[in-house]
């Protein structure tokens, strides 16, 4: 069974500083990987996804993530955080064949300090 671990429940970053949110997954083959963002009281917005190819994936709002098979990781990064980035971030994994659904991590709450 697939699973996702986001080891940090919450992270505080100063505005303008760089950000890295950690995500580790468990899956028997190469998975499909996603990062979603959820602002308070809002739905889920897809930031980026990895299916295959280049392991460095660019997303919306200046985010990027790198797939590292050897570490079973898919960490999310942003070089300079803005106050509007404060939100809950979810990493998710899906199988790469047949019927599959998203398995989410428990989320990381990003707080941005002035």
């Amino acid at each position, binding site marked *: 069974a697939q699973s996702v671990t986001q080891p940090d429940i919450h992270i505080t970053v100063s505005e303008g500083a760089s950000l890295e949110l950690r995500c580790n997954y468990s899956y028997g083959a190469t998975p499909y990987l*996603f990062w979603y963002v959820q602002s308070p009281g*809002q*739905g889920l917005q897809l930031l980026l996804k990895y299916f295959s190819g280049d392991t460095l994936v660019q997303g919306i709002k200046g985010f990027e993530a790198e797939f590292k098979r050897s570490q079973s990781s898919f960490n999310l990064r942003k070089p300079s955080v803005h106050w509007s980035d404060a939100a809950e971030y979810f990493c998710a994994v*899906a199988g790469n064949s047949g019927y599959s*659904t998203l398995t989410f991590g428990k989320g990381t709450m990003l707080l941005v300090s002035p």
Partner: protein
Amino acid sequence: DTAVSQTPKYLVTQMGNDKSIKCEQNLGHDTMYWYKQDSKKFLKIMFSYNNKELIINETVPNRFSPKSPDKAHLNLHINSLELGDSAVYFCASSQDPGGHGYTFGSGTRLTVV
């Protein structure tokens, strides 16, 4: 036009009642889902439908009954509501049953009192 729309956005009801949440997508997707987000923000799949047929049921109590009248709609009916059913329910659709092109609705916050 909203791609995946859920109604209602908020639902407050008493224990023991029966309620429904509706979901419609106008993306032409074949696959639709219900996810539940609990009070700790943990998101978990409940059901998956492909072309109106149930393909995944993740050991959800049988008080929860999804219904798909056509592939653009997936409604969720809940009988005999319990306090523990309080959560945010998200509908989603995908262009393929592998779930690789998800679009989520904005969620329905259900509060059982």
